[in-house]
């Protein structure tokens, strides 16, 4: 790819990020294929002493942070790039810290590692977009999150891949005393295959995590999601919710598990799937407790849109396509109220588009 092409592709990647609600030009990082092509740190972040570095910079200047806070064991020499976000204690950052990963070159394999750290009583909001401009390639990522005592983090991740893209991602979050993680994930794409593993380690007393996953599965794509919350801190709690709309001949496997090993812990799993085509969906909620004093619940359902609902909406003037779209929007948007305010319009707009048949 020559220099001119790079500029054009970068602009296209920035435009796609904007369409997903991520305004990189205001500040953020864009990784195109193997490396960062744009890295803008807003004045506000600098002013508050936030470290927002590419992995290359982080390895040179903040190796101590990488070593101290990493949750996963990753051989960084095998990783091409990634980011480090470090929010110092008692620092509240309300503007989303945005990062995008785009695949542009045919056949490229992108391998990234990210570390997000919010020290004690710090607040951070992050938005991440992952997408492709090509029809063949792979994205591999490991993301670690460390939330110190009383820290709060809200995150949104949007996937918008294309057929022929293989994705493997893993996320681990360590959540200490009274810290809270709210994570929202939307996959609106049709990759060849996506494998995702999320592990929430609620080690701190009264630590809490809420995770919302929305998947609009379509085409002949295969989706594998595994989410685990380990409640080892006394009084810790987690709520893992997922809503899957399965169209076409997609195949979706969704495994959600909560493990309680400490007294006073609470966990709830809700996985619901709506089948609109001949897709195959399997959903497996699993609750494990090794303490007498845990309260764990789950709800799971797979079904199609009921004839009663459609008939009702017909009598309100909606035809079959419009009625289906309205129901899908309601189904996917059920958790919208839990999305942090700065990110809510983005999620709302994506759900609106998905309900009409895709992004």
């Amino acid at each position, binding site marked *: 790819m020559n220099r001119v092409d790079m500029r054009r592709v970068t602009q296209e990647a920035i435009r796609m990020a904007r369409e997903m609600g991520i305004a990189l030009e205001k500040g953020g990082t864009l990784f195109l294929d193997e490396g960062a092509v744009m890295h803008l740190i807003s004045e506000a972040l600098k002013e508050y002493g936030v470290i927002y570095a590419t992995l290359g910079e982080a390895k040179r200047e903040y190796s101590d942070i990488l070593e101290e806070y990493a949750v996963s064991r990753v051989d960084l020499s095998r990783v091409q790039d990634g980011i480090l976000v470090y929010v110092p204690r008692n620092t509240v950052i309300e503007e989303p810290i945005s990062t995008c990963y785009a695949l542009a070159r045919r056949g490229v394999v992108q391998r990234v590692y990210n570390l997000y750290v919010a020290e004690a009583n710090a607040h951070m909001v992050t938005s991440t977009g992952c997408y492709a401009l090509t029809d063949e390639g792979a994205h591999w990522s490991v993301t670690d999150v460390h939330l110190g005592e009383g820290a709060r983090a809200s995150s949104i991740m949007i996937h918008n891949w294309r057929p022929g893209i293989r994705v493997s991602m893993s996320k681990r979050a360590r959540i200490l005393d009274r810290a809270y993680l709210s994570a929202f994930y939307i996959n609106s794409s049709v990759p060849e295959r996506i494998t995702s593993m999320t592990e929430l380690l609620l080690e701190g007393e009264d630590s809490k995590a809420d995770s919302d996953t929305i998947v609009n599965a379509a085409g002949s794509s295969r989706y594998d999601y595994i989410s685990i919350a380990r409640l080892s801190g006394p009084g810790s709690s987690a709520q893992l919710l997922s809503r899957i709309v399965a169209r076409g001949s997609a195949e979706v496997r969704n495994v959600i598990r909560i493990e309680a090993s400490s007294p006073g812990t609470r966990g709830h799993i809700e996985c619901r799937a709506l089948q609109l085509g001949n897709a195959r969906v399997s959903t497996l909620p699993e609750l494990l407790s090794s303490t007498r004093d845990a309260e764990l619940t789950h709800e799971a359902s797979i079904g199609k*849109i*009921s*004839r*009663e*609902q459609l*008939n*009702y*909406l*017909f*009598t*309100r*003037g*909606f*035809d079959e396509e*419009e009625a289906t779209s*309205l*129901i899908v*929007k*309601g*189904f996917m*948007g*059920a958790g919208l*109220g839990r999305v942090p305010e700065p990110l809510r319009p983005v999620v709302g707009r994506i759900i609106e588009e998905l309900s009409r048949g895709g992004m």
Partner: protein
Amino acid sequence: MLEVRGLAVEVDGRRVVERADLTVERGRISVLMGPNGSGKTSLLRAIAGIPGYRIAVGRIIMDGEDITELPPWERARRGLAIAHQHPPELEVRLRDLFTELSKRYGSRIGEICSELGIDHLLDRKAFSGFSGGESKRVELLTVMAMAPRYALLDEPDSGVDLESVKILSGCIESLARSGVGVLVITHQGHVLNYLGRLGRGYILHEGVVREEGSALEAFRRVLKMGYRG
């Protein structure tokens, strides 16, 4: 005028209404009564065009247009609205449903929401966990949001307290005042005590609809002599 001419309705291959002839005039409230299981709801659903309620014989004419063969959404778009007796729980936030209806029909119902005391339901899934009275009020409001020419109301007064009946009656009368032709199915007839602008009265018995003069006359006749009269 909404005219139902010689309608026979089948559900699952079984004839549930043998013959229905009735007329709903704009700006008036007509009433349809009949014993349990007589086919009143099936008749209304067939007029609205809901799949599964097959019109075997007869025509439905709305302001001169034959709508018998139209799909339900086309009938609704032309101004025919039905308030269901038991609306299903929808996977749609009530606020979104009202927004879509207001957009589609150019209606404004914000003030009425407050008057009907249903503001607190707007961010919930429509009809999910609503009380009987809440369901009836919300359902009537969805009909109003369609700014219809004709409204078919299936037992708007069943299972609600007297206070709610008064509120619902006020809404029904305001529909008629604005020129909407209303057909109300009622069992107990409570709602008739609060309604003006009453039109014709019909009784559906043993599969046949017959006109019994005015709505009040029909109601008094049922009270005095029963449906067989």
